[in-house]
């Protein structure tokens, strides 16, 4: 079956290297074609690898893994869980205003959302709208020290002299004295988008970025790289109007959003890691957003027991 046995491991290694190289956006396709032309054994070796790789991808979600999946959010100790039962802002206001006075030792107050977004209004009229399946923590009950522990939140902060709001999101701190902006925390990326005013974003590792209205910062948490790009101010936290609007967003960010809106586990084939998405998804489409996105990006989405996985164009 294998012409490789003549060429040996060397050809197989070359084919592997090409297989990997071609997954890059800037792949050298001409070099690859030249390599194919050199020797028919090259083609056979490549076929074998591509087929094996596809077989692994097809089964990856259901294959036993040797390590448990990574948990991205460390749980804060002594959390007090708070759920909203009523939807009204007044109820949220009452809860937020009353709770800190009831507790003697300041504990973290945790706001979690399920499938619906909710708005909480603090005593100083700061309003935070939490997207579905997101978590906001009020550190030690102090309403000027917040944390986005998961998901996305939109902040509308009135300017009050002498008051600075500090919001932690993973390894970053966002500081603000009065603006409207959103913070989106995905497993691999942090996005801060400003609709009005200015905020500063400071990574724990040093350096500060000042963001004005119409700017967004997308930080790759693993690589510790951030880039600042324009954003249409009307599109900031447009999920509040039922639309997810993206401009050149990493696919991982879109996938994390879809996971929150649908409650599905969403994974991405490694070959799609560098892909970015620009476009609009309608939240009302629910799980239909997976195929909407797949269609728009010319990729495929496959559902299995393990969740939804985005793959390069495969089955049509």
């Amino acid at each position, binding site marked *: 079956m294998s012409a490789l046995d003549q060429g040996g491991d060397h050809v197989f290694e070359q084919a592997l290297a090409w297989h990997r190289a071609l997954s890059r956006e800037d792949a050298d396709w001409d070099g690859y074609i030249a390599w194919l*032309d050199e020797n028919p054994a090259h*083609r056979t070796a490549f076929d074998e*690898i591509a087929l094996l790789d596809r077989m692994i991808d097809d089964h990856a979600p259901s294959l036993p893994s040797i390590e448990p999946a990574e948990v991205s959010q460390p749980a804060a100790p002594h959390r007090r869980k708070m759920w909203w039962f009523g939807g009204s802002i007044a109820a949220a206001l009452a809860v937020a205003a009353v709770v800190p006075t009831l507790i003697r030792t300041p504990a973290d107050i945790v706001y979690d959302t399920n499938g619906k977004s909710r708005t909480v209004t603090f005593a100083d009229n700061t309003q935070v709208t939490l997207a579905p399946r997101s978590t906001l923590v009020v550190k030690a009950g102090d309403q000027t020290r917040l944390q986005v522990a998961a998901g996305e939140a939109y902040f509308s902060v009135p300017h009050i002299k002498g008051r600075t709001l500090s919001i932690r999101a993973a390894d970053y701190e966002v500081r603000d004295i009065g603006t409207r902006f959103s913070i989106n925390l995905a497993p691999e990326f942090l996005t801060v988008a400003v609709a009005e005013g200015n905020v500063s974003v400071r*990574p724990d*590792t040093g350096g500060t970025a000042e963001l004005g209205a119409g700017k967004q910062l997308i930080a790759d948490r693993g690589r510790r790289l951030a880039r600042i790009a324009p954003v249409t101010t009307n599109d900031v936290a447009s999920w509040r109007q039922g639309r997810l609007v993206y401009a050149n967003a990493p696919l991982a960010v879109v996938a994390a959003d879809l996971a929150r809106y649908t409650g599905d586990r969403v994974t991405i084939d490694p070959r799609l890691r560098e892909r970015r998405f620009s476009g609009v998804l309608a939240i009302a489409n629910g799980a239909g957003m997976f195929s909407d996105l797949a269609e728009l990006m010319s990729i495929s989405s496959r559902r299995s027991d393990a969740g939804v996985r985005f793959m390069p164009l495969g089955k049509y």
Partner: protein
Amino acid sequence: MKVKLSVETTEPIEHVPLGALYGVHRAELLRFLIARTGDRAEAEDLVQDLWLKASRGSSGPMANGRAYLFRMAQNLIVDRARERQRRMRRERLWIDGDAPLAGSSEERIDPSRDAESAMIDREERARLSQAIEMVPDGARRVFDLHKLKGLSHAEVAARLGISHSGVEKHMAVAMKYLRRALAD
């Protein structure tokens, strides 16, 4: 490590109809497919198939249309190879009527496409899991993180505290073992 902050303007994304892209790159695409398949007739057939898909498909955000089409072609070739592979297995299942891989009796009396396909899936998965167990520990850990957990090479390197080329070597070892274990 310092975080680098760069100001960059997002370029407007090209929304090019795939059909138009195809027209521009058809000759190159054919040349590529001949090199890739070693078979002119099959290459022509693939080009035709790609044209149908391209003209039906919507436009997508594409930084590099040519690479995009090549990648699409590459995927199509693997799709076809994968179908052939599964068809061969299906035929084999029919021949070895009492192979132990048929799960329930229901599947044996109802050889519908779905049941057959589920059977092939199960068999493939079992063979693959067995093969993965043969991979040496270091390579298996890298394989697990990259292929099963979807971490990038850079993330695997960071997680395991090894170099980038170390990750590539481990992946090569894993793929060699799998290829050997799965060879018919």
